Structure formats: C-alpha cells, structure tokens
C-alpha cells in the first residue's frame, strides 16, 4: 500500500462500509479500500442467520450472512481492495486534502494515504453491573451470537437474556435454534422494546418474557449457576421480596449499543450526545459528511439503527464521495441522495422509527449550525426534501385480522403483523398480488382474500414468521394450519406432534400432513398440520419429538 494514494478508504466492512464502497466504485472511484480489524470482512452480517426486514432494496427476506456474501461478491467484482486484520490506530492530517491513516496488523504498522475516509466503525455493546456480572457465563448477547453462529459453540445449556429489544429477542430465538433452553427474557421497561413479531417467535416456543424486571445478581462458584431476577416498580426501583431465582448457566446482556466513535473523535469531528441514537454521535450532513471535509460516516457509528438503514446510509455516503471526487455532478448526486433520504424517512417512520428520524434530522440541523455558510460549492439540499412526506398514507392502515364474515372455503393466509415496522417482504413475495403494503412500507399488510390462494409462500417469506395459512374446511372436524418452522429435527409427514399456542401453551395433538421446502425458502419450512377445527386460530407452533435411534 506504500506510495499509493487511495480515492476512498472505508474503515469497517459491515453493511454500511461495504455498500458505500460498492456505490462509490460503481460511480467511478478507482482506488477504494475497505479496512477491517477483524479476521473476516462483513462486520456483524455473518452472524446474522435470520431473515432481514425492509424492502427488496434492503435485501428483505434474505438471511444476514447471505447479504454479506452478496455484498462481498459485488465488492470483489468492482475491484475494491479489502484488508482484514488491520486496526486503524490513528489518523493524522485529518483536515488536509490527503489524510493519513495508521494501521496495525499482526506484525507491522502501516500507513494509508487517502483523499476521502468513510468511518463505518459500527457500535460496541453496552453492559450493566450487578453482583456477579464478572462471573464466567455472563456475556454480551453479541458475544453469545458469535459463539453460536460463527464458532458453533453453545454459550450455555440454560440461558437467561436481559433485554427485550430486537437484539435480545432475535438472539434468544437463535439460541432456541441451536438447541439451547432459554429460561426467560427479562426486560426492565414495562413493554417489549423490540418488534412484537420477534417476541411472538419465542413466546410460542414457551419462553417467558418478564417485563418490569431486571437482574439483581448472578450467583455461582466458578461460573454462573443461578440468576436472581427482581421486579421493578414504576420508578424503576426494586420491589421488596420480589426476587425470583432462575437456574441458568449463562446470562446474556442485551442492553443496547454505543456508537464506536473513537476514530471520528480522534480526527476532530464535532460530536453531540443523543440518547435516541445511543450516545455520542458525529454531526453529519444529509450527505453523511462530518464537520471535517472529506471524512464521512455511515451506519451505527452515526447512530444506532437497523441494518437496512446502514445499507442506505452507506450508499448515501458512497454517492457523496463520488461527487466530491468529481466523478458525478452535484445535480445527479443530489437527485439520487434525495430519493435515498426519502426512503430513509420511510424506514424511520411510525412508532419505531419516528424518534430516530427526529434525532437524525436534529443531527443534520446541528451540522449546518456548526458549518454555517462556509460550505462554498456544497449545496444544502436538505431543506428541499419533505421528511414528513413518508408516513402519510394512513388510509391503508387496516389491522389485519380474520374477518368474522369470512366463510370462504379453502386455505387462506392469516397475517399476525400488528405493528408498523418497515418491511414489505410479504408484498413482494406473494405471486398473486394478494398482499398490499404500499408506501410507506411501515403500513400494515392488507390481504385481498379474493386473490389469496393459500399457497403458503408468504409463510416462508415473512422475516417475522408472522404469517400462517389456515384451512377450516379441510374435513368435517379438522382444520389445517401451515406454519413457518426453522428448528431441528424437521418433522416428517404423518408424524404426530404437540401443537402449541401463541404463548407456548399446549393446545392439542396434531398430525403433519405436508412439509414444503424450496431453495427460495432458505431453510424456513412450511409445515402443514391437521388439528381439531376449534384449535385452528390458536395453533401456531409444533413440538417435534426427537426420534429415538437417530
């Protein structure tokens, strides 16, 4: 790397960094390098074994590690250089036209000269302290996920999770997939912070979610053997004598993330504290440029959000780099970036996204307060986009439900998606145009019963595993329920299974009558079971007995 001057150096090879590198090289930037301190590129993508939310442009319905594979292939096709095992330990001449990054590898220190630097350094896990938190077995939920999904090692046999945000809920589900018993998910708030569909996935498997509770103490001689959980009152104070002991050999802390801003702070970029975005974040423009010209940010470092946001922010930053290097005109950059912002506003709409959207807008406004009029040629187009436009289509907000007058014969989809989350995988997945989400994608899905054939493709496509197909006319006394199934062992046709309800309770016995799996379903099997008619609205999961001798 000696003597070369890079057009763009990307620090961090997660979704934001990779999409930024792809975008800028696609637009003509020649010497683009992606640097990562880990052994492999991809950031957190390769431990995400679940299907992502969002739209087609955000790879919705595709498992995270496959998105990683897709992005890495694009990166290599475009000739982007990737360097692993290299930590950026310093940045010098940050204000100059050519910036100097210092890298440290396993055995040497190197230097990278670059015209533009994109910091996509992601986030780090938060922790909480309580007696016993330093015992082996207490770990960040991200660590548990790495152990399971990268190294194929179970973090424990009986695990308690602290934190019912999306990360805690998703990893709890992945633990169940790995054959771990999840004894409970504990949440200090009085509500579930993550998506209800993620909570439903584990609740139907019988995992209790304890709201207004926290961990008081982890007990064990050499490692965790017991975790004491305590109830919290409305002032977040412990309720006396409300302690509940759980037998557990691991405790996973899913208590949030903090943007990893060391490098942008070292460089001298201005930062601001924003609770909604996870702490200290670098001020940045709508073009993702920080207060230092030529240094950009994207993804979690610029505020803790979803991977879909990181993907779009990376593209935004990549476009800005191409513009600032003269590869594309400001007009064409502004045109695509405006569209991306509108889509980011779409991702950041409704109850889950709105607070983040407001926070992000305040970051951009703060940036302009700092930069004032010294921007010269860089045009401020932010005020030209209507950030309020996105969450407006309230007309299509019909709660999906079984209509009581629905006496149609044959199978039909039941969509149990009741929160305005930014995802339309069901709409794009349906071959019959029976499901409509529309714009913005936070709209609740609307099912057109006349078009629904009950084929079950949406059952496999929904990343929230929230769609079922029910046929109440299967036989005189029996109905069929088709449900998504991502566990082992895979049930066999004819097998008798225990049928569980929405909260994991035993409902009835059922019989497997069909197991559908295609390459496109990607390990989400659609299992159809027959159950007594009266159980059809409750039957949502099956417990498959392990076969003896296998």
């Amino acid at each position, binding site marked *: 790397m*000696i003597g070369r001057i890079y057009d763009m150096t990307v620090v961090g090879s997660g979704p934001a960094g990779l999409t930024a590198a792809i975008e800028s090289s696609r637009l003509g930037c020649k010497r683009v390098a992606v640097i990562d301190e880990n052994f492999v590129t991809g950031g957190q993508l390769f431990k995400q074994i679940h299907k992502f939310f969002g739209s087609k442009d955000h790879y919705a319905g595709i498992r995270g590690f496959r998105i990683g594979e897709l992005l890495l292939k694009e990166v290599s096709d475009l000739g982007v250089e990737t360097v692993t095992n290299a*930590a950026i330990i*310093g940045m010098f001449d940050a204000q100059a036209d050519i910036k100097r990054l210092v890298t440290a590898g396993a055995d*040497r220190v190197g230097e990278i000269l670059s015209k533009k630097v994109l910091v996509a350094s992601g986030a780090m896990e938060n922790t909480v302290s309580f*007696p016993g938190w*330093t015992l082996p077995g207490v770990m960040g939920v991200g660590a548990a996920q790495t152990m399971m999904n990268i190294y194929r090692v179970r973090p424990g046999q009986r695990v308690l999770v602290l934190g019912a945000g999306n990360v805690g809920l998703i990893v709890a589900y992945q633990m169940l997939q790995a054959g771990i018993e999840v004894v409970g998910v504990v949440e200090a708030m009085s509500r579930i912070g993550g998506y209800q569909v993620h909570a439903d996935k584990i609740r139907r498997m019988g995992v209790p979610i304890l709201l207004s509770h926290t961990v008081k103490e982890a007990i064990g001689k050499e490692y965790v053997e017991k975790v004491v959980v305590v109830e919290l009152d409305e002032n977040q104070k412990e309720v006396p004598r409300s302690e509940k002991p759980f037998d557990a050999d691991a405790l996973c802390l899913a208590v949030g993330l903090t943007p990893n801003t*060391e490098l942008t702070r070292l460089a001298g970029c201005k930062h601001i504290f924003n609770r909604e975005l996870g702490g200290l974040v670098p001020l940045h423009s709508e073009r993702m440029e920080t207060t230092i010209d030529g240094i950009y940010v994207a993804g979690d470092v610029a505020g803790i959000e979803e991977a879909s946001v990181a993907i779009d922010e990376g593209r935004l930053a990549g476009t800005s780099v191409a513009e600032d290097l003269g590869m594309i005109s400001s007009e064409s950059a502004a045109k695509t970036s405006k569209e991306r912002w509108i889509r980011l506003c779409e991702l950041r709409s409704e109850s889950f996204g709105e607070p983040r959207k407001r926070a992000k807008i305040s970051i951009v406004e703060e940036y302009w307060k700092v930069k004032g009029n010294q921007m010269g040629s860089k045009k401020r187009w932010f005020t030209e986009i209507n950030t309020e436009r996105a969450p407006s289509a309230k007309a299509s907000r019909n709660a999906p439900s079984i209509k009581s007058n629905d006496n149609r014969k044959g199978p039909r989809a039941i969509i149990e998606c009741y929160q305005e989350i930014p995802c339309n995988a069901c709409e794009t997945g349906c071959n019959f145009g029976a499901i409509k989400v529309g714009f913005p994608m936070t709209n609740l899905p609307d099912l057109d019963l006349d078009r629904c054939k009950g084929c079950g493709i949406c059952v496999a496509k929904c990343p929230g595993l929230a769609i079922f197909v029910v046929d109440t006319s299967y036989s005189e006394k029996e109905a069929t329920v088709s449900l998504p199934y991502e566990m082992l062992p895979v049930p066999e046709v004819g097998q008798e299974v225990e049928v569980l309800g929405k909260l994991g309770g035993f409902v009835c016995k059922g019989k497997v009558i069909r197991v559908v799996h295609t390459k496109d379903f990607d390990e989400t099997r659609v299992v159809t079971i027959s159950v007594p008619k009266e159980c059809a609205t409750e039957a949502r999961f099956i417990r498959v007995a392990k076969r003896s001798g296998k």
Partner: protein
Amino acid sequence: MNEGECQVVICRCEEVTEEEIREAIRKGARTFSEIKKITRAGMGICQGKSCQRLVNRILAEMTGRSVEQLGFDTPRPPLRPIKLAVFKGTD
C-alpha cells in the same frame, strides 16, 4: 447500597471496584477522566470501552447530573493495544 454491591468490579481490566469509584467521587472527582486518573478505571487493555458507561452512570447518580453533561474521554492514538514489536515491523 449493601456491602456486596460495593465490591462489584466496574473496570475489569484494572480491577477497580464500585466502592473505589464512589470514593473518588466523594473526594471530588467529577469527570470520567478524573476518576480514571485517580483509580486507573479505563486505563486497561479495553481503554474504558465497557466501564466508561458504568462509571458515568455512578457519577450521574452521585452528582445529580445527566450523563450528557459529564463529558467523555479523549481518544488518543494508538486506538488499539498493540505490541511494541509491531512498531518495530513498520513498513
């Protein structure tokens, strides 16, 4: 706060307990940097990545200030712990 809770280690790298942090605050430390200089919390191999938030929380609780008013550490190169031998191998 019972005795057990005060024995809780806050900075794992330098093995600094909650009681030591509280004592530093009682003596007048008002920022993470000041607590770091008195107790070594945050001076270990992770450079405060896990304990800074925990220390700031105790600081906020004891001084009645919000976390955003407390200020943050100053990152300095090298941002990652590296062996001196690695510097010798400079290319």
